[in-house]
């Protein structure tokens, strides 16, 4: 398997002389390697000993990596590379050449009659690219909106405070809730009326206050109502 590694630049050698490449171009690439913290098109290397390698493909990238190490020895001590196992060198080179040709050829090599169809082809590809990117964006956006809405709803929901509810809930609601939650039965109406009178005199300051001032309402009932409101039941 061709494995992807970080390889010490110093352990790599190259048969192509450095003078074949323009110094300012290597400089520019080196800066880019330092900025992006890596070579974006990894070298292909052949392992010649346990800690030495030879460039199979990517001579220019290699010298750019060397230049980057010269500029910043610590940050660019290593370079990303594929280490190609023995026997696979030619297959790897084939793939490498095809991949790098794909970048450069279509426009340069095509002659006028095919230009339009080439262009058309590219337009179609571009269109589908844009379309799929758009769909991706759309899905992402929908997901985000949903997530945000959920968060907003969650954060805006007032924390239910049973005491406030006792103090402020309208009478019909209270009657409904007490009937549901307690076993007061027919007494509910009377209890709620008492409660309403009591809270009009002054709001309840605590649950014990509530139990003390509303005669028909026992501790157990209050607990049951709170449980029902808080959804802990």
């Amino acid at each position, binding site marked *: 398997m061709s494995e992807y590694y*970080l*390889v010490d630049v110093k352990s790599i050698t190259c048969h192509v002389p450095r003078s074949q490449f323009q110094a300012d171009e290597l400089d520019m690439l080196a800066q880019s390697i330092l900025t992006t913290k890596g070579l974006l098109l990894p070298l292909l290397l052949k392992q010649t000993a346990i*800690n030495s390698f030879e460039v199979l493909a990517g001579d220019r990238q290699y010298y750019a990596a060397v230049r980057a190490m010269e500029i910043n*020895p*610590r940050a660019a*001590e290593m370079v990303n590379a594929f280490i190609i196992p023995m026997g696979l060198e030619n297959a790897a080179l084939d793939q490498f050449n095809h991949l790098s040709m794909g970048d450069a050829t279509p426009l340069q090599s095509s002659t006028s009659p095919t230009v339009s169809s080439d262009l058309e082809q590219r337009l179609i590809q571009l269109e589908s690219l844009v379309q799929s990117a758009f769909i991706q964006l759309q899905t992402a956006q929908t997901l985000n909106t949903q997530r945000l809405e959920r968060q907003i709803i969650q954060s805006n929901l007032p924390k239910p405070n049973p005491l406030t509810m006792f103090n402020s809930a309208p009478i019909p609601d209270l009657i409904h809730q007490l009937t549901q939650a307690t076993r007061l039965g027919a007494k509910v109406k009377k209890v709620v009326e008492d409660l309403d009178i009591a809270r009009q005199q002054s709001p309840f300051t605590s649950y014990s206050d509530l139990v003390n001032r509303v005669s028909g309402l026992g501790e157990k009932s209050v607990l049951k109502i709170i449980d029902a409101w808080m959804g802990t039941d």
Partner: protein
Amino acid sequence: MKTIAIYHNKGGVGKTTTAVNLAAGLRNKGKKVLLIDIDAQANSTFATGLIKFEFEEDDDLKHKNVLQLISSADFDFIPDIVRRSSGFNHPEIDVIPSHITLIDQQQHLTRIAASRLRLLFKLEKIEDDYDIVIIDAPPSRDLYAEIALITADYLIIPSDLKPFANQGLNNVKNFVAEVNEFRSNLKKEPLEVLGVLPSKVLTNNRFLQHIFPRLLETVEIRYSLPVFKTIIYERVALSNCVNQTSNMGVREIPSPKSIFEYEPHCESVREFRNLSTELLKKIGEST
């Protein structure tokens, strides 16, 4: 210079106790000793008195430990990283400390083609500075353990000889075989397994008479591994010497000591002296 790895993939078998006190024992015999802690738990680093800080901000090891040694080829050599143990032993020993960040960085290191070789290459550069290098390896089968076994010439396997520790011996043997394949690519001799070192052995008489001999036999026959003559028994002083603290007003500062420093005349001291001698004989060094 001879390099010895202390390794077992079963934890809690007295690996760190062995590493630090063996280092002290060899130092006391006049050897120049370097102790390398490559276990992220950093127990050896602690035991040699290098973790006395209480707050993260005071951590002076984070950017100067064994991780830097493995990460770079051109920087951070052993003299840049090495520390002198602190209040641990007379004379003190040299230590390459470890750090908990090793756990985080393993993923990255496995991407580096040469990460398994760095420690070896950097030790070669200081070959004349030390007689003995001891590597405290993690009780796992990870990159760091691999580095330890690739770098070392010899292996000591401390073991309490209990069933799991014994069954782990097969893993150790397989691991050593794997490492030896890598070493042969390096034109390096296979790792020499010096043997299983019985450690944390109970001093209970009945255990020693009836059970212990059978356990020893298992190791020698079933796993065909040599066993050290020296036995490191579980003793109070030995477990206490790492846990010393000194009182500094409101603060309790860790003040771990070697057994030689902590209780110079105890049984454990004799055991570690014997171990040092037995080891030196096994590796052909003068005692």
